Structures are given as structure tokens and as C-alpha cells.
């Protein structure tokens, strides 16, 4: 037998891109379970339909680009995009909304830029923002959580998705929305008077965030990503919230705990900000990247026109990631700090 001639290293570690993606999918499960518990089957239906569309779009794009469809589909990256976007979409969204969002994510944000690894913007967030700007009405309709309103069943969820015309949606403003529009009540009174507030934040939302935090912590334990970006984001968000808490006055931006456990905070911190392709690379760079996302999230939530801000904050910082990378190149062994002049 002829001897194989290849260069070192000959050994390879156990990690594979496919495994990274599968781990991320697995880590979303607790969050999806809690979302389903509080808001019904809407999110699950989103994910199922979204995954089908995503795989179809991915296969189509790979075929058009002349790539090995089977080989690249196996990396599961399209599924991750579908899961992330569908978790971010309001439950009971119509099928076409999901399809447009997924197509924007997979085709526009990913394959137009050269496919996995080459996209400068987070595909799921591009899909989300395309929808938010194009269909603001459908994108801001959240179902009331269990305990506040009636939670629809699986059949109703399917009906909402595939026969949206015949479905009568029950919607309610999210806690972030309520807080943003409040300018007369002290926070204490707002909490008493509004049905959807729970102990620290919105009913259901608290647990959704804690579930995503748990999933993220597991990914950290699995060393899928480093702590730098998510922790920096959460820290800067909490810090700003603490600075502008204002003792809970009517002009308060909300308490740090409220911000940490509201909307897409934890989901964003552990599943969006950590997207390696579109974030800064060096550890110092990731600290800066995460911290600035936290600042933007708080600013947009409190001052901006949109109730939640993760998507915009992340996309803006995606722009800045190469710039951050340029200035945070780590000191190489045997070089002096600051020796590298950019």
C-alpha cells in the first residue's frame, strides 16, 4: 500500500462545525419549552415551518452556486438560522411572514455574501429587521402570556400560521412596550396597574429569559463560545439601567433586573451576540463588541422607536466588528505591547 503523504498535524480534535451547530440547537430547547408553556404552540409552529423553508432555501442556494448540497446541508447552519429567527418572531405569525423572513436570512444575508462564514451580518437578525421594517403591524403583535390571557392550542396555532385570514388573533403589548409608553405612572404603580408585569419583569418573559440563560450557560460549559461578549453585553446593559433607574420614577428607564429579564436580552446575549461569524474575533474585541451592543440595546429600548432593540444593536455592531478586530489584535508571543501599529 502506498504511503499517504500529508502535512502535519495528523491528529484532529473531536470538535466539528456540525457539532457546534447541533449544540446551539440543543441549547435553545429550554427557551423554546418555556416560550411554548407561556405563549402556546405559536413558536413551535414557527420553528417547524421556518426550518422547512430554511432547508429549502439553503438547498436552492447551494444548487445555484454549484456546491455539494448534501455536504453543506449537513453543517446544520441553516437550521440554526431558522431556529433563531423563529424564536424571535411573534408566535402565531402567518406562514408568508415566516417565509419572507427566512428567505431574507438565508438568501439575502447569507448566500448573497458567499455562504456560511462569509456573511458580515447575522442572518437571523437581517431577516428579523427586514420583517420589522416591512410588516411592523404583524411584527409587534405578541400573544398574552398564560395567566394573563387565554393561550391558544396547537390547532389554533396551525390555523394562525397557515390560514391567517380565518384566525382571530388576541394580542397584547409586551412589558417593554408598556414601559416605553409610560410617562405618568411611578414604576411601582405601573406594576400594580398593568396585568402583564410579574415579579421583576413581564409574566412569562422572566422565565423565558432564565431558560435562555440556562441554555447559554450550557454552551459556555461546552466551550462553544467564550464568556466575553455575552457577559460584556449583559454588564453594560445592567450598568446603564442602574444609572438611569431614577428610583422608579415615571421617567425611569426600568430597573437592571427588568432589562436583563425582558424581551430578547438573554436570547440575544447567548444566541445572537455570540454568533462567531459576525462578531469580533479577539477576546478583547469581543468584550468591546458585547459592551457596545448592551449600550445600544438600552439606548434603543428607552429612547428609540422600537420596543426591543437586540436586532438593531447587533446589526449596527456587525458593521463595527472588523474595525474592532483591527484595533484589538492580541500581543503576539515575543512582541512588545503596542508594537503593532495599525
Amino acid at each position: 500500500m502506498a504511503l499517504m503523504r500529508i502535512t502535519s498535524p495528523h491528529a484532529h480534535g473531536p470538535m466539528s462545525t456540525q457539532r457546534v451547530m447541533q449544540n446551539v440547537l440543543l441549547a435553545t430547547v429550554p427557551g423554546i419549552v418555556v416560550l411554548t408553556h407561556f405563549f402556546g404552540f405559536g413558536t413551535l409552529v414557527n420553528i417547524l415551518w421556518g426550518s422547512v423553508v430554511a432547508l429549502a432555501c439553503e438547498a436552492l442556494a447551494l444548487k445555484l452556486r454549484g456546491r455539494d448540497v448534501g455536504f453543506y446541508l449537513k453543517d446544520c447552519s441553516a437550521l440554526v438560522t431558522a431556529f433563531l429567527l423563529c424564536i424571535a418572531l411573534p408566535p402565531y405569525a402567518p406562514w408568508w411572514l415566516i417565509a419572507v423572513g427566512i428567505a431574507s436570512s438565508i438568501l439575502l444575508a447569507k448566500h448573497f455574501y458567499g455562504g456560511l462564514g462569509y456573511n458580515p451580518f447575522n442572518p437571523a437578525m437581517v431577516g428579523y429587521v427586514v420583517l420589522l421594517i416591512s410588516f411592523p403591524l404583524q411584527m409587534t403583535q405578541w400573544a398574552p402570556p398564560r395567566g394573563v390571557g387565554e393561550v391558544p392550542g396547537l390547532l389554533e396555532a396551525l390555523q394562525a400560521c397557515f390560514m391567517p385570514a380565518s384566525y382571530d388573533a388576541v394580542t397584547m403589548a409586551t412589558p417593554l412596550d408598556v414601559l416605553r409608553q409610560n410617562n405618568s405612572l411611578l414604576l411601582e404603580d405601573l406594576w400594580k396597574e398593568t396585568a402583564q408585569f410579574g415579579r421583576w419583569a413581564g409574566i412569562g418573559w422572566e422565565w423565558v429569559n432564565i431558560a435562555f440563560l440556562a441554555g447559554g450557560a450550557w454552551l459556555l460549559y461546552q466551550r462553544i463560545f467564550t464568556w466575553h461578549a455575552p457577559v460584556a453585553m449583559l454588564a453594560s446593559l445592567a450598568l446603564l439601567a442602574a444609572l438611569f433607574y431614577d428610583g422608579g420614577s415615571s421617567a425611569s428607564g426600568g430597573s437592571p433586573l427588568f432589562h436583563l429579564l425582558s424581551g430578547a436580552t438573554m436570547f440575544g446575549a447567548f444566541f445572537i451576540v455570540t454568533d462567531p461569524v459576525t462578531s469580533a474575533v479577539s477576546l478583547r474585541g469581543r468584550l468591546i463588541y458585547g459592551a457596545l451592543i448592551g449600550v445600544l440595546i438600552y439606548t434603543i429600548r428607552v429612547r428609540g422607536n422600537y420596543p426591543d432593540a437586540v436586532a438593531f444593536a447587533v446589526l449596527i455592531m456587525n458593521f463595527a466588528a472588523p474595525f474592532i478586530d483591527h484595533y484589538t489584535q492580541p500581543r503576539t508571543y515575543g512582541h512588545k505591547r503596542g508594537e503593532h501599529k495599525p
Partner: protein
Amino acid sequence: MRKIFDFHGGIHPPENKHQSVQRPIAFAGVPPELTIPLSQHIGAPAVPVVEVGQRVFKGQVIAQPKGLVSVPVHASSSGTVTAIEDRLVPHISGHSAPCIVIATDGKDEWLPDIGDSATPDFEHIDKPELLERIRAAGIAGMGGAGFPSAVKLAVKPGVQIETLILNGTECEPYITADDVLMRERAAQIIGGARILRHIINPQETLLGIEDNKPEALAAMRAAVADTDLQVVEFPTKYPSGGEKQLIEILTGKQVPSGGLPSDVGIVCQNMGSAAAIYDAIVLGRPLISRITTVTGDAVREPRNFEVLIGTPMRYLLQQAGYEAGKNNRLIMGGPMMGFTVPDHAVPVVKTTNCLLAPTEAELPTPPPAQACIRCGLCAQACPASLLPQQMFWFAQGKEFDKLEEHNLFDCIECGACSYVCPSNIPLVQYYRASKAEILKLRRDHEKSEHSRLRFEARQERLERAEREKEEKRAARKQAAEAKAREASSAGSGEQDPIAAAIERAKAKKAAQSAGEDSSSELEKLEKAVVSTRKRLDTALAKLREAKDQGADHIDALQAGVDKTQAKLRAAEEALNAYQLANASTNGQNDAGAEQPTSDDSAPSAAQAAIERALAAREAEAALPPQERARANLEKLQQRLASSRAKLAQSRDAGEAEKVIEALESSVERLTEKIAAAKQQLQDLESA
């Protein structure tokens, strides 16, 4: 307890060391044929000193070092030299190189005088002598690179070495050669360490050993018990055994980029090299064998062998129960940094620490690479704190300046990045290829720079020669003019006809055609400005390029640019001054040029005549007086002859009396002159 430092990154691949340490070191035996490469070290290959057909003894020098960074090669066993030719050698490129082939006779007979130079009390030998003996024993770093040990130990005078480090890390998976050496031959290593300490006189001597070798640690600790050598244990992590990493672990210091360990007061040696140095000095034996691990699932009895240098790998593998059918690739070294060998006939050399014969299941063929998702695992694993994913990006795009900016050349090619890459990207391969390409570009650039400098020097030389010629011509002309003027003013009656002619021509020229001359002067100045500016532009471009590449000769280029700038300024000033000065005269010239000139050709003809006359006079002036007198006489005689001929002609033709009289008188004058000239010549000759 000594403080241990950590280095950035690193990985924990499966160690797979247990397979080969179950059995003690065994002698692999004398193979029927030894193939001994002339270059088993970094540096110039050795030069053969034996002939085909010659019988050699074990330990006999068969090739002598060439140059400073080189070591000799010895016969590993006794036998007959059968060939000196190119054979496949273990090298990453898989190429062939000159080898000496010995058919062994099985007697394994030592050179009779081997061991004569054995000196157990080495303290009495001075340092250069010890270094020479180490070199003569053919010792080159046995850890992998094979750098001649004597060169490494010859620290520059004036450099104080604080720490001598003996590297017993052996962080590569599978390899246990140093491990078993330390277990079984600790005394030999310590003996070598004492010689090394004697040579470089450090303040401390550290023996760094990873904590995954408890038996080796125990053996070494026992061996250093009564000495001031320190055994330092530190946590297992790949690549702790890299020289730079080990230095950081033990001392917290980093070797400056592009520098040597001695720059921070450290010298590193391999355990195997220390043992070989002991053999060389204390026993007087050259390096003819080494410990090699033979392991992998394709050998039935993985273990360590003492192998004669030059033993074909096939022979060695057979000793360990090699199953060729199960083996997909044969690796010299470990799975992280080892390289595949092309053939089983390749010989074991001084740097062969391991032969790894894995099965496909053990080290699978790498799957096709997927896209980089910039996960950053590689950056976390990189012991040099590089950003491998960025470098991969730049390597794909062949952005070499960016690669150098990201310190590509600080990559030690340990393979940690490729190991952790979830997308199976062969990162190290990209870096190796990029390094090679950059080095090639640098060489090409140097070459073109060299030829450019040569070309410019030549141009300058030619210009200078031209200028000098021009100046000399002008000086001569001036001198002649001055002389003529002197003559005309001094000898009031005897007006020099040439000087007068010059004056006339000059006056005419000044009045008439100064414009032509000045315009050519103007052109010359303008041309000078343009060409200097062009040179400045190319110099600037070159400087910019050099700065981007961080080349070494930036200073020289900068100096060149400055000089060219100064030249340009000077040229521009000269041009300006000239233009100012000629602003008025040009106007006049333009007006003068319109006048029809009847005697257009006259001045040039006159000029030519003057020039001829001047040249003749100069030629005359150059001659010695005697010669001049003789020439004068000859000329006069010629003139007399022609005058007589004219006179005869005139008489025959019956011309006017006046004419004939004039000719007669001229003949008379010439006869007188000839007499005078003859007299002068005689005077000169007699004087």
C-alpha cells in the same frame, strides 16, 4: 517550590504514550545496510572522506563538516562503503539527498582508537576544546530541528547565561523516547548536564519535565539529589515542549520575536543531546545511535529502540512487529508536528525521535474542509497568541502584507489551531505555504533591488565620466584662450593669428548665435529637473512599498529619497536662476535670429579652422623641445619643397614677374628659416 508560569493557548490531545512505555529500551540490531545522510542537521551538509569500496569501522568519521554550522558524520557500524549517492531521506519535502551507504559486516567493530579521548574529569578541559569535541562527535539537537549543539552552546562572549534548561517535556502525543531515556539513563543525562553547565556557567540549571511522566520525574529527582540541578515539574499541555513555550513556563520570560533564547539569558538543550554529550566527552564516543519510539496501532509491539543512525525504517519497524497492511501513513515524529515519509527505506537519522505507524481508525484521513465560521477556537489554542482565523482569511486572499502585520512568522507551526478547527481547515498548511511564498517574494525583491542599485550606479558612473570629460575639455579651451589673449596683449606687434581668429569668432558668435547655445543649456537643465523628479518618484514608491512590507533597508531607501530630493531642489534652482538670467538675452536673440545672415557658414568654418589650429598647437606643445624642433624643420622643408615646386610651375607657365619674384623671395626666406631651425635642432641635440 519554584513558580511555574503559563503560556497562552495550548491543547490537550489524547497522549497515547502508554503503549510504548510498557517495555524497556531494546537494541534494534545491526541492519544489513546502513544509509547515512550527509545532512542530518541544520546547516551545510558534511563532505564525504571515504571512498566506495573502503572498509570502515564503527565510529569512524565518514564525512567532515563544511563550514561553521555543520557537524561530521560517523559510520554507525563496521562494514564496506558500497555507494555514495542520492537516496530518499526523511525530510518534509520527501526529496533525495546525498548519503553514504554501508554494507555492514555484522562484526560491529569499533574504531581501534575510539575512547582514547575519553575524559571523565572534563573540568580540566577548557571550553573551546569541549565545544570542538562536541562538534567532532557529530551532535546536533536531537529534539527535532537538529541544530548543531556546539553552535548553540557557543554563546557570544559577554553574554551571561542565567538559566540552562534541559528540555524533557516531550509534549507531542505518542513519543516516549526522552521519557524512557530519563527513566533508564538518568545518570548519563545528568553527566551531560554537568558538562553543559561547565561550558556555559549558568546561575541555575533547570530540568523541565511534564507531570505526565511520574517515573521519569522520580528517576531524575533521584539522580540530581546531590547536585544543584533542579527538576521542575509542570502541568501537561501541548506544546509546552516548544523551546519558547518551555522558557515561558519555567522563567516567565518571552524570547523576543526573531531573537534567540540567549537574548534573555537562556540556553535550552534536549535530554537526548545531553546524553550524547556525555558519551562524547566522558566516553569519547561519537553520536552513532539514538533512542527512537516505534508506535501506532500498525505495530504489534510498540516500544523504544536504541537504533543505529542510518538504519532503514523498514528494518526498525519489523523489529516492532509492523503490519504494513494496516498502516495508511508513516510519520516521523508525532501526530502534531511530524511529517509523513515517502518510503519504508528511508533511514533513521539523528532527529528521528519517533516512528508513528497509525491505522486509518487511529488517525483518519482528514475530511474535506468546511467554511471557517470564525469560532475563534484556533485563537484560543494558539501558543503564540496569533489570530489564526484572520491569517487564514489573508492567506486565502494572498494578502501577504496583512499576514506579516499579523505576525505570520511568529507561528511555530505546532498545529494546535488545525487540531481544534471544527471545520477541519488545514490552517498550518496555509501558513507554511504563505511563509514560503513571502520568503520567495523577499528574495526576488532583494534581487531586483540589487540589480536596480547596480544599474543606477552604472548610470551615475557613466554620467560622471561624461561630465569629467566635458570639464576637461572646457578647461583646456579656457587655458588656450587665456594663453592666446596673453600673447596678443603682451606681444603688441606680433599678433597671434589664432588668437585673433578666436577673438573674431567669439565676437561674431556673441553677437549672433548665443541663442542656440543657451537654448541647449536650458534644455539640459530642464531635462535634469524632469529626470531627477522621475527618480524621486520611483524612490518614493519603493520606500512606501518597503515600509508596507516592513523591510530592513528602509533607512537606506529614506536616505536615497532625501538625497534625490536635494538633487531635485538644486536642479530646479539652477533652472530658475538660468531662466531669470536669460529672460532679457533671449529676447535679443529672438530679434537677432530674424536678421538674414549672409555668412552663415563662415563662422563654423572659421571655428573649425581655429579648432584645428589649436589642436595642432596643443599637439605640438605636448611634444618635447627636440621633437618640436625636428617637426618644425620637417614642416619647413615641406613648405620649401612645395614653394620650389610652385616657383618652377609659375616659371614654366610664364606668369607675371611679380608673382615669380614673390615666390623666389619666399623660397629664400624658407631656406633661411630652415638653416635657423637646423641650427636650433643642433643646439638642442648637443645640449
